[in-house]
């Protein structure tokens, strides 16, 4: 789900742009460290592969088919940071050249699909297939969960952002779209398992087995954060009318007319004058904080455990 321009309220797209910038910068540096210069064309060609993979249809039932989205597959083959960079490049190209997704909302789309989506696809893989002796079954389970979560988390984040921006969605529509997301997430999980196993048969060295490091705790924290996102939307869909009317009454969007005149912080305070919205925004900020602190802690720990590296 690529959010076009004109959908998100100014505080939502602006803060996500500001958030995505340092994240992408950090991931780019990390990806540059992890992949030798020899692999540079590989990242681009893999992006083209994910683009082209959409042409190959996977039959689901009579008359319906789906296709690969790719976040979890890339994370399992290239590693998380390069995968996030490839997804970012895909989204940037889609926004710039193909008018698929907005340019101001690129930060939101990158955050949903390239950062949160890829991490959600990677965490189960890291936790369940972490050791080299992990059984085939647990690796398959990890891949399925990775594909499932990467699609579901991206979609739920996009829904949260749209709801926060005051785009009205009645309970029925929200429930229906959640149902569709769950189905397509399960499909992505199944496709990821099938394709990774097929790649494994061709050349096992292409699948990156994650090395077990003392960072599992952070993977668990990240995982919990992902599940909270999904859970939050599920709870929200149980009482969507309240959210909708609140969003309409206090809609951040309708109150943010003067971006050019006022600093961002000011209208976040002005816009969020309802209890529920403030809570929701705080929740989203909390999640973002969890992500950022996960990344920061991970980095710190990495430095401490490997002072030479």
């Amino acid at each position: 789900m690529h959010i076009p321009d004109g959908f998100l309220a100014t505080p939502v797209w602006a803060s996500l742009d500001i958030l995505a910038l340092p994240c992408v910068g950090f991931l780019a540096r990390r990806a540059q460290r992890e992949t030798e210069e020899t692999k540079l064309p590989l990242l681009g060609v893999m992006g083209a592969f994910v683009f082209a993979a959409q042409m190959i249809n996977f039959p689901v039932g009579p008359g319906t088919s789906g296709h690969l989205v790719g976040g979890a597959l890339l994370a399992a083959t290239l590693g998380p940071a390069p995968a996030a960079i490839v997804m970012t490049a895909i989204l940037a190209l889609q926004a710039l050249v193909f008018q698929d997704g907005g340019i101001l909302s690129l930060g939101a789309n990158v955050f949903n699909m390239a950062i949160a989506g890829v991490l959600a696809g990677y965490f189960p893989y890291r936790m369940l297939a972490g050791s080299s002796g992990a059984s085939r079954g647990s690796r398959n389970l990890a891949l399925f969960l990775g594909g499932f979560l990467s699609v579901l988390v991206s979609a739920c984040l996009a829904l949260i952002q749209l709801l926060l921006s005051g785009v009205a969605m009645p309970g029925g529509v929200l429930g229906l779209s959640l149902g569709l997301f769950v189905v397509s997430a399960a499909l992505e999980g199944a496709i990821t398992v099938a394709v990774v196993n097929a790649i494994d048969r061709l050349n096992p060295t292409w699948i990156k087995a994650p090395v077990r490091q003392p960072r599992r705790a952070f993977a668990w924290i990240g995982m919990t954060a992902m599940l909270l996102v999904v859970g939050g939307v599920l709870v929200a869909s149980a009482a969507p009318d309240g959210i909708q009317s609140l969003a309409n009454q206090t809609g951040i969007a309708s109150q943010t007319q003067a971006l050019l005149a006022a600093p961002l912080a000011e209208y976040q305070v002005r816009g969020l004058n309802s209890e529920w919205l403030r809570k929701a925004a705080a929740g989203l900020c909390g999640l973002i904080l969890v992500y950022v602190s996960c990344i920061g802690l991970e980095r710190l720990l990495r430095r401490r455990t490997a002072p030479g590296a």
Partner: protein
Amino acid sequence: MHHVLVEQWSRGRSWLHRRDARAKLASLAVVLIAIGTIRIGAHVALAAYFALLLAATVAARLPVTSILLRAGTVLPFSGTFAVVSWLSGDPQRAIALVEKSYLSALAALILISTTPLPKLFAGLESLGVPRLINLVVQFLYRYLFVISEQAQHMRLASRCRGGGHGGFRAANQNRFQAAAGALAVLFARSYGRAEGVHRAMLARGFAGHFPLLAPARLSLADGGFFLSALAAAVLVRFVL
């Protein structure tokens, strides 16, 4: 490939085509922010932006109808949300969703149809986009059509072998596995191609970035273009 058309448009020689990519990118950002932050129901101002963008299209000697139609690719998405918004009793927002998303897509399309991609990426890099991402995007674009064509060939080949037929459950499962196998083969070919590309790049002395035929220089006209775009966007935004 449908995108080739935009690339042909981007090789025009109009005044807008000749402006520096950085000036155009900055102007696009200004216009997008102005459209993005405008209040719901500001139909006059949005119509004025439409008129400005239309004037730019005409000035760039781009095919107006095709541009207007192509910018409509965003409409299925925003239309769906607009219908939902309308039905849940917020017609003003529904109209705003369609207006804003269409105008934003139109603005981005005009930039991409007046700026050849190498110049666009060079402009992005000098505006501070990380080099790695910029390189990956360019590689992606270069090989997008190659790999897509390969995927199409594979799809055609699988159809010729009868891959598109059958409908029983067992057959369905086989087709699922066949599609997974096809993707794995496509993955392997892409991997191999990337290695070949890298060797060829080394042989040709790749120095870490794609060189431009002529270095981009900001001229007075570029500054004038950006300032007039800024003035027009701000004027419409705050006066109408």
